[in-house]
């Protein structure tokens, strides 16, 4: 039995792997599972449930740009129709899907290094 003050192990990082390559230049990221469920509300019964919608996963992250160029060709991946596979390790489970890089933007402020912001959209797949 864990004693008072004992701390169980927590997640220290989440690897994000695109097309089989683990990304190393990410500075922050956000993964959102949008279930797409449509609430059903009736006058008599109020909120009664949901109907199945289009579920998807939105991924967004910022990454630094090494001297040799971006870790992956984000700008062209955003511009082309080329699909990408994503794998995100979450504890003992993984989210794996095949989708698209939707946007990629390159920005730099005065006195700051250039940074790339990328968003991706993937069909929901069971995390297991």
């Amino acid at each position, binding site marked *: 039995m864990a004693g008072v003050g004992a701390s169980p192990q927590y997640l220290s990082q989440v690897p994000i792997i695109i097309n089989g390559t683990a990304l190393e230049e990410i500075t922050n990221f956000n993964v959102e599972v949008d279930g797409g469920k449509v609430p059903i509300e009736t006058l008599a019964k109020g909120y009664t449930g949901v109907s199945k919608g289009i579920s998807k996963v939105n991924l967004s992250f910022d990454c630094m740009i090494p001297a040799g160029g971006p870790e992956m060709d984000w700008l062209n991946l955003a511009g082309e129709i080329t699909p990408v596979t994503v794998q995100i*390790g979450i504890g003992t489970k993984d989210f*794996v*899907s095949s989708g698209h890089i939707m946007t990629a933007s390159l920005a730099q402020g005065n006195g700051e290094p250039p940074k790339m912001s990328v968003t991706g959209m993937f069909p929901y797949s069971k995390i297991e």
Partner: protein
Amino acid sequence: MTETISIPGIGRTWIKPGAYIYVLLGQGPSVSGYGDRQVCVIAPMTSAGTGTANKRVQISTEQAAIDLSGPGSPLHRACKEVLLTNPFGTLWAIPYAASSGAGSASASKQITLATAPTGRGVAELWVCGEQCAYGFTSSDTVTTIAAGLVAQINQKTWLPVTASNSSGVITVTAKIAGASQNLAICLHTTITPNVGTTISAGGDLTGGTDGSTTEATNLAAALAANAMIGAYCFVFSVSDATNVAAIKTWIATRSDPNPGLRSYALVGNRDTYANLSAIAIGSNTERFEFVWQQDSEWTPGQLAGHMAGHYTRKENEYPAYNFSGYADDRYSIPKTFNEANWPSASTINDALMAGITPIASSDGGSSLVKRCTSASKTAAGGSVNDWRKLPSHRRNVMDAIAASISQLWNTEFASKTLLPDAVLPNGQVNSSVYTSKRSIRPSMFKARVKRILRQAYEDGWIQDPTPAIDSMICQVSSVMPDRIEFGLDLQAVLLADQLVARLTENSPG
């Protein structure tokens, strides 16, 4: 120490990098009770062909097949059918020489016209389902009638025969020598009645014999020279026991995990069920298919080529395609001419149980009853049924998933370094651990295969993927540290083939 996952041919002394996948079919409980799929035709050429024996050539037009192997050769006729039924697929051809040398003879049959005509009429001689007709009058003689029919036959260069005439006796001769043409080419005759002239009955060509260089020898050389070529469906024009055994061994060897060239052989047959069943049961492998239509109008290679085009066209879209009752708009196998040779439902069922794909005939034409492999027994030549590997789609689905896994490995995991999985105190694999972009871990590969399985389920290839995912083993080998061992049990989707229903009228009275 033995490996957890061991596959034949990839032991401790095999260290060549690569993806080696062993597909095991028929491993479920006995209840006794799915890249672009390519076709390769391996068949004899005639002396008119300009191709080099045993050399593979890509075929994109019928003329290319004609130039390669000669018009009317078994290879030309099979390629023609593949091009008709799958015009956008990839087709290869490997010609080999027919039998030759001392003792070789071509199969033939004589058709005799007798008695001079007393009126107008039409004489027909059907060769492999093609009509050759000559209209005659009372001015004609049996010689001129025969000459007219012979001219028709020889004009149709795509037929597998040539014809000659001697005073009204037509001799139809196979274009290649050898026993393989016996019972492979059939003739039918009709003539206007009551105009004096008669024509003898048709039948199969016979009398072909192999010479000192047999066709089996030449086929074996063609196979040996092309052991490593890539194609999924191999079409042959022979289906005798000797050649079937040689082809079976060749297919099995190339389909092993090393070299991993999974494929199957497809042959046609027009012999009786009794004769073919012995050969089919003797082969007993999921990588061999016999398309059978007794007394078919078509030659065996033509039957096989026709279905090869259909199979690959449908499999490229959906490896679990259900061919039961198949007769789509490009299907054109004619019904058997002689109704007496239309197989009964009982014979068709027997054929299926023996691992034969039967083609049924009816007044409306023909249709493929159900596609199956020749793996129908627990052992080759045995009598105990085992139908776990009988449905062809199970092999197709497994091969398609194996190809997906192999492609995944080759494109994203091969040539990287390998780290073992990090394991939590509770024994579970920790996915959230730093992994260099140059490295992979078994759990990363496992997660990607899970996605393949879920997609296969969504596409209708396999049954519920959850037990398959639960069964997965993926770990660094304890015996070979540069190797990932991967194991997976899964079930191909079922086919909706039969309905049994009992309707009970239970009004009281």
